[in-house]
């Protein structure tokens, strides 16, 4: 029996005066963590808001946890935990009030777990919502979300404004969520180091379009920087899968997105060094490659 995908977006389009999200497709399976990486203004928040039903698409289909979005968003949100770095707690109240508020709406609220999170995130229930720093706001919101144990977590830049210790605590909690293979996480982030570490799948988005979407290990295995030294007069044959080529006299650097032993063999002893690429380097190379292809 195939399980329902947690998020299914097909051909989604959303048009704004100066920005269009176009032909967006995204799939999130249960038990998966998907990292969503893109520059500012690429469309990450727009995509996430579409998934939450806060805005409606101009075209395309969206289903979250099997529910049609935005029509059935009330039912879907029963099982979704949504935290955005822009979100704020309600004014003139306390963290403790929010805990009581959430627990009265969601029967799955785990009070002992909430207490543990409060301690671990260094919060105090008596703290007023008005005086919280950005980091404390996010930690409080994450605590309120995690303690309900929602099946799907949708997180828009959840580690913005967090100091390294808090980030570590928060990432540890996310991974704990994945102990249950019926739960999943979609999180967008600038922090490619975190994305590289914990994501199963990664989606790159740029200027309103999905540029690439693959298993993290695939990305890390397929992309390489190859440093060559070509004696004068020697030119390289046409090579498949070369995304960029930088030439500096006798020294060339190739960037490839389809690294294989075959490619290495083709290049023979011109190869001085082969380097793996970090997710950040892969992302940047990928984006530039796609912008070129689109004539941008």
């Amino acid at each position, binding site marked *: 029996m195939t399980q329902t995908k947690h998020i299914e977006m097909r051909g989604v389009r959303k048009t704004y005066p100066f920005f269009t999200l176009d032909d967006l497709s995204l799939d999130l399976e249960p038990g998966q963590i998907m990292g969503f990486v893109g520059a500012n203004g690429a469309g990450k928040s727009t995509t996430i808001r579409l998934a939450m039903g806060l805005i409606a698409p101009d075209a395309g289909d969206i289903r979250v946890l099997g529910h049609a979005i935005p029509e059935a968003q009330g039912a879907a949100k*029963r099982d979704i935990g949504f935290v955005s770095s822009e979100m704020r707690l309600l004014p003139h109240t306390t963290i403790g009030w929010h805990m009581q508020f959430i627990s009265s709406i969601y029967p799955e609220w785990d009070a002992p777990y909430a207490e543990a999170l409060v301690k671990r995130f260094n919060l105090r229930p008596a703290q007023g919502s008005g005086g919280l720093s950005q980091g404390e706001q996010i930690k409080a919101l994450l605590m309120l979300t995690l303690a309900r144990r929602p099946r799907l977590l949708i997180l828009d830049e959840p580690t913005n404004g967090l100091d390294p210790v808090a980030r570590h605590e928060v990432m540890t909690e996310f991974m704990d969520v994945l102990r249950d293979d019926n739960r999943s996480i979609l999180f967008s982030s600038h922090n490619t180091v975190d994305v590289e570490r914990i994501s199963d799948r990664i989606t790159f988005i740029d200027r309103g379009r999905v540029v690439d979407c693959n298993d993290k290990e695939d990305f890390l295995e397929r992309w390489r920087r190859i440093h060559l030294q070509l004696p004068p007069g020697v030119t390289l044959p046409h090579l498949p899968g070369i995304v960029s080529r930088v030439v500096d006299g006798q020294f060339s650097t190739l960037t490839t997105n389809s690294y294989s032993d075959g490619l290495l063999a083709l290049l023979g002893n011109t190869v001085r060094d082969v380097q793996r690429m970090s997710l950040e380097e892969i992302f940047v190379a990928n984006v530039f490659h796609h912008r070129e292809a689109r004539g941008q």
Partner: protein
Amino acid sequence: MNIVTRKLVSKELYVNRWFIAGGAFSGVVSVCVAALGKAGFSVGSLMWITAIIALGVMLALYGVMNERKERSMLFVLSLPLSIADYVRAKMLGLALCFFIPWLVASVAAIVLVLAKGDVPDGLVPYTVLLSVYMLANFLVLLCWTLHVNSEAWISAAIVLTNMGVSIYMFVVGAQPGLQDHLYGPTPVWNQTAWTILIVELGVIVLAFTLPFLLAARRRDFI
């Protein structure tokens, strides 16, 4: 009304508790001031009107505009509700936040007019009409802020509704059907008074139901 909407309405009451308490308190205090002689009456009436207007403005500003600006709206929208549920809860919640102190202040005012010897009871209809007008005024403002996203337009509405009160008092106070009986010994509910009251109630119903028909159907809330 489902549990989430109910919880949001009580949240609205809780979050705005100081406005509610403050509004009721100011209303009663201004009525007390109005009880102190003729000068007191003028001052007290002015205080009473100001208190209710201020209450309305605060609720519109903090209840809707700031929630949007401060992005705590995102928190509420993450709850298991639809956009329609959110609009309903906001409308009911904020209307209730205004209604409670307004009722206290209005009843206090009418009691004063009836009880105070040197204030003619003929003022009762006018007081009621003014009172109901303030309620209608607030609901129109609330309806406007739920449909309009720009701070500029909302500020404009606040200014206009404030001006509206003065214009109302002047225009309605000058209606012959009312003016003739204002300072009479007994409250006179004639056709003029009833017509004005019915129009006000009509506006209240319209302002209250419009968001359920329009804003609730919106597909984009951000």
